């Protein structure tokens, strides 16, 4: 269980004023849930993820993972970035096995685990290729496999499919849903797409910018159906899906969203 309590991040802006990137955010990410943070750019969702990852210290409040306070980056939180951060000098399997290498796992063992993960993301035949010979979607799958290799408690995903074309993105969403259904790993996922949030999230938190805070929370369960059928069409035309989508769209586009600080 990841618990965020009253988390605030403030830093001075160039003009001397203070930027409230994150303003008293409280959020729980329970085991086997996918919590999606949804919002326009600048709403603090990346700040929140960077704080969970340990890249950015909180000004106020606390984040704990299974009761242990997060102070710095660590292998118990796997991160998938929007821009892939694979090492260009290492081939795909070495990239996936990188975290295990850091742990000192012997080569044959870490290759064995890496091969399993490559099978999971359907990249077995690309194990010996350098990452720059792969397409964007494939590189992102390597990134997911790499984050999973050390078996982290939680997976943090920062708009991982944002830079992909729409066909590849759908395939990736499907892959993530089925991975989650199999592993039940807790996931914190960031996106600015309402559809993506609804399809993948078991809980969706809508965030508003300046100050970055959570303005609404929704529960959804389309991801199980998506993982089972792999078909996005019927879900998108589900009346409950449409209703939620329109509610969130209204909320985001309403000019006075700041007044909804306590909306549940």
């Amino acid at each position: 269980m990841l618990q965020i309590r009253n988390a605030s991040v403030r830093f001075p802006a160039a003009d001397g004023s203070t930027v409230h990137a994150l303003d008293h955010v409280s959020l729980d990410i329970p085991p086997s849930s996918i919590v999606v943070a949804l919002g326009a750019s600048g709403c603090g969702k990346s700040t929140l993820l960077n704080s969970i990852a340990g890249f950015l210290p909180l000004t106020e409040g606390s984040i704990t993972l299974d009761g242990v306070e997060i102070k710095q980056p660590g292998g118990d939180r796997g991160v998938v970035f929007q821009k892939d951060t694979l090492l260009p000098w290492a081939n795909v399997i070495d990239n996936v096995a990188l975290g295990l290498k850091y742990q000192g796992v012997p080569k044959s063992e870490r290759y064995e685990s890496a091969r399993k993960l490559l099978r999971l993301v359907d990249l077995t035949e690309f194990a010996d290729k350098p990452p720059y010979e792969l397409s964007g979607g494939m590189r992102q799958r390597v990134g997911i496999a790499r984050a999973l290799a050390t078996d982290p408690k939680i997976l943090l995903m920062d708009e991982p499919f944002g830079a992909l074309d729409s066909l590849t993105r759908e395939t990736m969403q499907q892959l993530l849903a089925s991975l989650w259904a199999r592993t039940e790993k807790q996931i914190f996922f960031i996106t600015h797409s309402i559809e993506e949030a609804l399809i993948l999230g078991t809980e969706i938190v809508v965030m508003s910018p300046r100050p970055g805070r959570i303005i609404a929370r929704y529960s959804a369960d389309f991801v199980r159906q998506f993982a089972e059928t792999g078909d996005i069409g019927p879900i998108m035309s589900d009346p409950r899906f449409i209703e939620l989508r329109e509610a969130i769209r209204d909320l985001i586009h309403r000019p006075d969203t700041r007044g909804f600080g306590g909306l549940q």
Partner: protein
Amino acid sequence: MTIAADHRTDIPAEAAKNSRRRLPATERGTLGISVATFSVLAALWLVATKYHWVSSLFFPSPDEVVRQFVDVATFGYADGSLLDHVLSSLGRLFAALLIGVGLGIPVGLAMGINRWARGVFSVPIDLYWGLPPLAYLPLLIIWLGIGETSKIVLLTLSTFAPICFSAQAGVRSVPPERVNAALSLGANRAQIFTSIILPSALPEILTGLRIAIGAGLSTLVAAELIAARSGIGYMIMSAANFLAIDVVFVGLIVIAVLAFTFAFLMRLLERRLVPWKGKL
């Protein structure tokens, strides 16, 4: 799962796009043009000397230079064979490069990582780096004598700075997300350095090495022109004193070949060590 669809939609589309794309003019080869230009220049040289458009005292004909090359290579010139001169020049250059790389890379990396190292080392380096090396050669000769030491120190100074600067720039060019990714995979500080920072900085370091070789070679020849008893620069200077223009030409050609060989070897080294450069 229908992940396999990803390969079908992704890869061939990408490959087709690449093969259909016409290369822009800047990426098409210039080998043909270069060979033609070289031929025209060589022909011009041949004609100009054959019909005495220029005095052979100042501008020897190509066949004279070739004859002289064979002559110098077999019988030597200025107290040594051509090979002796080349080897003593290369010996100085390699000794200096070895020290320059051995000191420049660690100092540069330290400057890239550590604020204190940057503050301390940048002062003396900035102070001497702006000076033309030949300006302080007399000083080095007074301090260290006219032997090999002063020349190797001079060359070391001129190769150290570019390597040091490039190593520092290499560290600063490491994408912060790459470091963050490694940290969240559980890397410790030493692992970040060896597995992320060092390889990320390698392309820049090799660029620095290339610049250092260029700087070293020009400083080397200049230093040999002024104060040496052997080396290609010394051979050229001795020949010039006797107006042996053809021998001067032989020296220049040898230097050109050396420079070209170094550039070629550096390209080879880059292709071997950093094939990913500019790709990701």
